[in-house]
Structure formats: structure tokens, C-alpha cells
């Protein structure tokens, strides 16, 4: 079959699976519905990989473009460029991993609802794949909302507990509001151009000069995507939701969904706004750079302060999203391919870390760093995985996260010489926070941290286990899945073919004219030649430096658990994370205004 024909199937197959599971879910035993779910997810993953391999063959050649319903230029277009297809493949593979991981999860599935969890995960997969592949702005909004709706439900899945419900509600309100802002922006673009496809809108915009309307459309469309990407000040929902969602869902939320927001910003800018009728490159770079730096710093600082392990990991996702935004902001093919590698590596590492925390949660009914002190000495395998994950998160070569960080920080260094230092700092602090927790929990190192010295509000880590009862023996998938994910992250860093494929993907992604010609005119887009991203000496040294810094920070923190100075300094920042929906909404509106101020010199 023609490769292009396969593109809609990546969305259709999981949806069919979800419908089958819901129709039969009441009767099927748990095991069968798990197998059915895995099978549909795996078929989707295979399809996405097939598209990726056919689209990613080196040499000049177009990537597959499919007009759904067969309506050229009137319908909706799906584009299988290597980056979009690659993201769809990443999503699908992670979904398979998550379904395998949750094999023994939810020991007591909700009565008469055995099929519900895998069905929701399959719909989530369809939504994320559709968002990665679509070449149509309104269709992107539909998939944005689909991802959202499923994610709210999955976040609040454990209705017997108060925290997930509160997190899911904040997530739902803030994300929906962001989505509506995006839709207003889409409507403004439609009023100007009368088109909905990325390529068509971009071409029409370039026939006229930029003005207030284009600026407003950019700000509004980007607002929703930045909410999904959890950029400061749109990020408040993320820690609240990611800290409370069921562990398998956290793996997906932090591993790929947030990154899809960053992808959306980059995709929309490059295809729609990057021409002369859009937003000039320096303006985009300024706006995203400011937001990215703020996000990275705030995420890292908050990450270090947490004792609730899932919340700690959630803030580290915020910090890394900031780095991804910086990689997109520099507007070079190297920045894009470096960030893409970073996202690939990060997805494996972060999902593996969440998986390890899930093991702790189900064995000890808590994910609190202080309460768990020394208790997990009996789990050396999980401890080893957790430590490796922490090191990989800090950018240790030769992990994929390390390679991505090295390439992205070099690309960022061309824009501002101090940016590589930020990459090193943020990776070191987030990796160090993970290692600190690991040292305390799995090794019982240092002194037992004391509680109750501060009167600051704080989320502690008491949770109900997700497996019905506490686990005595750790089932194989709970450890095999994180091990496989870390191995995959390592493979991304050491297999040179991955690097060159991602390099080509980045080059095609940033070729605006080529994208529009491929989609609208069916011309083959020749891949612009670029040296593929690879390990360089400075990158290796900076990676080793940040890993060493992370270890040092962790050791110091374990030796002297008394938190002074920094804690007091950061108290006002911590208070902003108030859990109040009204606060989060107010910050969202303020963020829109901030984005306007940052881009407004773009109107000439």
C-alpha cells in the first residue's frame, strides 16, 4: 500500500480498538482486555514505524502527504514528515510500554469497567498521533481537545482520593481555556486568509504584510499550545495534574503530551508564521527565549524543593520543557534536531523514573522522600534503575538525553553564549534532585531529614497504592519496562543512524517553502544538506560536567539536610503554586498579555 494511505490508519486503528474494548469490556476478563489493548497499540506502533522508515529513507524525496477523504486542497491533510511521523512513532511505542507496565496495575479494576482504562489510553494515543501528523489548524485543535478530554479523565481516574480530582479539575479548566484561546486565534486567521491548512494559511499570509491581526492570531494560537507545553506562566496545572495521575498516565503525560505542546508551537510557527507576512524571526526568538529561560529556571528551582517524588519529577518536566522551548526559539535546524533528540531521550528517561516511583508507591503506599528514607534498601534493582535515570536526566553521555542536550546547547550557544551554562545548570539541578531522593530512599545515605521546621504549605507524598493492596513481590513488568525504556534512551545516544535521521528531520522541518510545496503542489522536497548531529568533545565534556554537578549537589544535600537560605528565598515562588483554579486562570490571562508585550515590536 502507498505509504501516504497509512497515515490516517495511525489514528483510526487505536480508535477501533477503543470502540471494541468499550463494546465488549463488560464481559471480557481483565487479561483479555489487556491483551486486546496491547495488540491494537502495537499494530498502531508498527504502522507509525513503517511510515517513519519509508519517509525517513535518506536521499532526496518527498515525505508522504495524504488528503483524508480524498479532497485535495479542500479536505484535511495529514503530513508524514520525519519529525511528525517520528513523534507519532514515539507516542505509540511509549503507549505500548505503558500498557505492558500497567499489566498488573489497578489490581482491582473498577467494577464492570475492565476495558475502560486501556480504551482511554488507546484514544489518548489516537489523539496524540493525530496531533503530530495533522497539517490542518482546526484539525490540530480537535486533536488538542481530544488529548485534553482523555487526559482529564485519566488524571482523575482514582476517584476514591481527593488529590487526583483536584489536579484533574485544574488541568481541565486551564487546558480548555487555552484551547478556546487557540480557537479564537484560528478564527482570526480564517477571517484574514479564508483557509485552515497550515500551508495554505502561510501562503496567503505572505501575500500581505504583518499587522495587529496576525500578531493577535499568533499570540492566541500560541497561548493554547504553551498551556499544553506548560511554559511559565501557563505551567501551574502541570505539577498538580502529573503528581496525582495514576503512574502509567504520568509516564505518558510527562513523556510525550507536554512535548507535543512544544512541537505544536514549532510546527505552527515554521509553517504558518515564519514568512514575511507572519512574525519576524527575532521577535519569535525573543518571546520564546524569555519564556523558555523563565520556565527552565523556575522548574529547576521548584524541582529541587519537592519531597513528593511525582511532583519532583513533574517540575523536572517543566524545567526540561523550558530547555526544549529554548531549542525551538533559536530557529535553526540544529536547534530543532537537538531538541528532537532531547525529547526522544527525555521521554524514555522520564517514563522510566515515573515507573520506578510507581513501584515505590505500590510497595510502601507513599512517595514521600522523607518518609521513605532508607526503606527501599531491599529493592536494589529499582534503586539502580532510579540512579541510572537520574544520571541520564542530568545529561550524562552517552544517553540520548545527553546527546540531545549537547546538540541543543551548542545550537543555543550560537544565539547567546550563556545559554549552554543554563542547560548545564538546569540538567544538573533536576538530575541532582532525583539522585538526592534516590540516595535517601534506596541507600539510606546521610542523615534522616527532619520535618516540621517550616510552616510553608507543602504537598507531602502520602498516597493510596494503585494496585489494590501493597505489593509483596514486584511483578516483572514493573521493572522490565523502566529497564527497557532506559536502554532505548541509551540506544538513541549511541546509534549514529538515529542521529542522522533526526538531523534530516530537523532540516526538513525548518524548510518552510519545501513543506508548502510538498503539501500543496506535490513537489518532492529535497532535503537540505546539513551535517547530522553527533557527539562532539565540548558536548561530552559539558555532559560529564553536569552529571558531576548533579552528583555533587545530591551528595551535599544528603549530608546536610537542613534547608536554609534557598528555601526562604523561594518561598514566595512556592506560594504561587497555590492549587487555586482562579489563580491559575488569572496567570493564564496575564501570560497572554506577557506574550503580547514580548512580540509586539513585531508590528511594523
Amino acid at each position, binding site marked *: 500500500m502507498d505509504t501516504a494511505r497509512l497515515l490516517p490508519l495511525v489514528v483510526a486503528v487505536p480508535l477501533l480498538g477503543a470502540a471494541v474494548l468499550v463494546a465488549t469490556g463488560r464481559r471480557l476478563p481483565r487479561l483479555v482486555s489487556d491483551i486486546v489493548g496491547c495488540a491494537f497499540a502495537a499494530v498502531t506502533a508498527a504502522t507509525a514505524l513503517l511510515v517513519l522508515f519509508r519517509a525517513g529513507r535518506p536521499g532526496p524525496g518527498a515525505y508522504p502527504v495524504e488528503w483524508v477523504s480524498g479532497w485535495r486542497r479542500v479536505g484535511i491533510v495529514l503530513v508524514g514528515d520525519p519529525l511528525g511521523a517520528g513523534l507519532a512513532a514515539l507516542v505509540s511505542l511509549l503507549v505500548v510500554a505503558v500498557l505492558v507496565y500497567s499489566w498488573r496495575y489497578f489490581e482491582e479494576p473498577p467494577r464492570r469497567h475492565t476495558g475502560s482504562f486501556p480504551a482511554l489510553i488507546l484514544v489518548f494515543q489516537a489523539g496524540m498521533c493525530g496531533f503530530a501528523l495533522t497539517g490542518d489548524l482546526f484539525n490540530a485543535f480537535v486533536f488538542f481537545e481530544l488529548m485534553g478530554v482523555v487526559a482529564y479523565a485519566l488524571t482523575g481516574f482514582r476517584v476514591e482520593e481527593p488529590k487526583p480530582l483536584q489536579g484533574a479539575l485544574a488541568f481541565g479548566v486551564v487546558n480548555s481555556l487555552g484551547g478556546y484561546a487557540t480557537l479564537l486565534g484560528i478564527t482570526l486567521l480564517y477571517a484574514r486568509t479564508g483557509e485552515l491548512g497550515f500551508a495554505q494559511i502561510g501562503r496567503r499570509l505572505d501575500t500581505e504584510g504583518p499587522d495587529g491581526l496576525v500578531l493577535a492570531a499568533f499570540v492566541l494560537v500560541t497561548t493554547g499550545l504553551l498551556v499544553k507545553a506548560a511554559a511559565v506562566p501557563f505551567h501551574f496545572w502541570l505539577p498538580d495534574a502529573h503528581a496525582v495521575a495514576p503512574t502509567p498516565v504520568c509516564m505518558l503525560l510527562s513523556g510525550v503530551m507536554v512535548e507535543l505542546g512544544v512541537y505544536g508551537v514549532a510546527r505552527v510557527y515554521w509553517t504558518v508564521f515564519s514568512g514575511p507576512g507572519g512574525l519576524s524571526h527575532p521577535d519569535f526568538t525573543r518571546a520564546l527565549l524569555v519564556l523558555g529561560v523563565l520556565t527552565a529556571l523556575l522548574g529547576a528551582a521548584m524541582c529541587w524543593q519537592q519531597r513528593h517524588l511525582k511532583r519532583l519529577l513533574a517540575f523536572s518536566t517543566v524545567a526540561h520543557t523550558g530547555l526544549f522551548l529554548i531549542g525551538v526559539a533559536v530557529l535553526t535546524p540544529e536547534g530543532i534536531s537537538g531538541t528532537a533528540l532531547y525529547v526522544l531521550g527525555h521521554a524514555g528517561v522520564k517514563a522510566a523514573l515515573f515507573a520506578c516511583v510507581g513501584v515505590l508507591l505500590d510497595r510502601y503506599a507513599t512517595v514521600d522522600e522523607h518518609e521513605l528514607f532508607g526503606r527501599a534498601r531491599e529493592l536494589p534493582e529499582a534503586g539502580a534503575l532510579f540512579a541510572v535515570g537520574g544520571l541520564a536526566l542530568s545529561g550524562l553521555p552517552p544517553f540520548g538525553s545527553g546527546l540531545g542536550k549537547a546538540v541543543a546547547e551548542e545550537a543555543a550557544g550560537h544565539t547567546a553564549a550563556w545559554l549552554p551554562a543554563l542547560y548545564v545548570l538546569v540538567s544538573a539541578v533536576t538530575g541532582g534532585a532525583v539522585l538526592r531522593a534516590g540516595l535517601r530512599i534506596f541507600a539510606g545515605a546521610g542523615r534522616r531529614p527532619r520535618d516540621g521546621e517550616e510552616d510553608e504549605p507543602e504537598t507531602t507524598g502520602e498516597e493510596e497504592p494503585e494496585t489494590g493492596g501493597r505489593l509483596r513481590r514486584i511483578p516483572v513488568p514493573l521493572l522490565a519496562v523502566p529497564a527497557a525504556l532506559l536502554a532505548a534512551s541509551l540506544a538513541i545516544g549511541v546509534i549514529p543512524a538515529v542521529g542522522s535521521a533526526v538531523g534530516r528531520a530537523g532540516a526538513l522541518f525548518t524548510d518552510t517553502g519545501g513543506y508548502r510545496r510538498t503539501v500543496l503542489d506535490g513537489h518532492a522536497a529535497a532535503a537540505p544538506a546539513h551535517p547530522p548531529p553527533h557527539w562532539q568533545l565540548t558536548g561530552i565534556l559539558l555532559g560529564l560536567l553536569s552529571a558531576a554537578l548533579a552528583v555533587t549537589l545530591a551528595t551535599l544535600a544528603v549530608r546536610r539536610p537542613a534547608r536554609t537560605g534557598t528555601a526562604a528565598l523561594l518561598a514566595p515562588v*512556592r506560594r504561587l503554586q497555590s492549587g487555586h483554579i482562579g489563580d491559575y486562570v488569572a496567570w493564564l490571562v496575564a501570560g497572554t498579555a506577557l506574550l503580547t508585550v514580548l512580540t509586539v515590536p513585531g508590528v511594523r
Partner: protein
Amino acid sequence: MTVLPYLVAGWIFLIGVYGLVTSRDLIHAVGCLAVTQSSTYVLLLAVGYRDGGTAPVFADAPTDSRVVDPVVQALALTDIVVGATVTALLLALVVQLRKRHGTVDPDALSELKG
């Protein structure tokens, strides 16, 4: 008249967000979100309107008559479904939240901080 419909859409968006920010009751907040969303329908259909156009249904109209833009109407339909479903899901969360927290006042939710 030339910009009034657009400005009304902007007003509805802002007033809805104002309600969300100042809400003391989560059910009321969900209602405000629904209000906010109606701004998108108004803007979509205002953009699609053409002076003197009729509805794009050719059941008994000649096929060359001047019609308003059908695309935005299709988009608005999709949008309405999205709005209703999000409302349902959020209300379901509020129902359970009330059971577990004993309140629907956002000021009193205190499980997640810092």
C-alpha cells in the same frame, strides 16, 4: 456594526474568564467556562457571515445563490460538541470532588500546594 460582532465575542471571552477568576463555587466556575466558550461560536459565525447571504442549504434554493460560509458553521458545530463534553467531564469531577473534599469552594481546596 462593522466590528460590533467581533467585539462582543471578545467581551464574552473576558467576562467568562472574570467569572472563573472570581468564582467561589466550582459549579459556577464550570458554567463560566461554558460562557467563555460561547465567545468562540460568536466569532466563528460572525466571520462566516456574508451580507445578503442565505443558509448554505440547497434543498430548494438555486445552486448559484449567494450563501454564507458553510465551513465556519461546520467548525462551530464541532466546537459545540467539544464544549458540552468538556462541561460534562468537569461537572463529573466536581461531583466527586465534593464527596472527597466536602466542599465546592475553590478557596477551601488545600491538598496541592507548593
